[in-house]
């Protein structure tokens, strides 16, 4: 069964902390994505990766960075968390450009 897992379902961090969100997929997919989901705004793309060690900025990359050292793992990093980064973060993977995106369950991050 296809599976995308995210390291935490709920996370509470303080302003200024460095935050790591981990995503792992077991489908040998080339492409991985990080989105944030906010009410009324839908999903907005933060970063994506088409291959190991490759990364591309999405629509809202400011304040975030990513790391993809292994094909199955894609990490989202908040260098210095701020309250406006409180959101739901969703990871997804796909085998190709037009393929179905498989989503993880999401991490609800609260920054206080």
């Amino acid at each position, binding site marked *: 069964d296809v599976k*995308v897992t995210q390291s935490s379902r709920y996370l509470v961090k303080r302003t200024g902390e460095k935050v790591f969100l981990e995503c792992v997929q077991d489908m040998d997919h080339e492409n991985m*994505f990080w*989105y944030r989901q906010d009410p*009324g*705004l*839908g*999903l*907005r*793309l933060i970063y*994506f990766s088409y291959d190991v060690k490759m990364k591309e900025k*999405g629509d809202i990359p400011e304040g975030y960075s990513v790391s993809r050292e292994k094909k199955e793992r894609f990490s989202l990093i908040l260098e210095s968390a701020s309250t406006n980064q409180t959101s739901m973060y*969703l990871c*997804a993977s796909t085998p190709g*450009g*037009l393929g*179905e*995106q498989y*989503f*993880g*369950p*999401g991490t609800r991050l609260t920054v206080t």
Partner: protein
Amino acid sequence: AQSVTQLDSQVPVFEEAPVELRCNYSSSVSVYLFWYVQYPNQGLQLLLKYLSGSTLVKGINGFEAEFNKSQTSFHLRKPSVHISDTAEYFCARWFQNFVFGPGTRLSVLP
């Protein structure tokens, strides 16, 4: 910029009634469209997709959508909804990457 519009942020409907969730996209040469569903506290899962061919697309759980190029629409329909269909529904298109609409929250009332 490519965009996806979902005109209704919330749609309440009684159980066993029909429902239509509206989606419009900005025009483009190539159009690849998707509907995803998100149940409470879960990630998104694919309902159906239009890549080419027949403009009427059937998906899981009895949902279907019709691609209308002249109206740049891809509305989602179900003839009879169940309580379990209560969820948030996202329309999306592929253009270099996925672009999602803001979502429509469907509430099915008993």
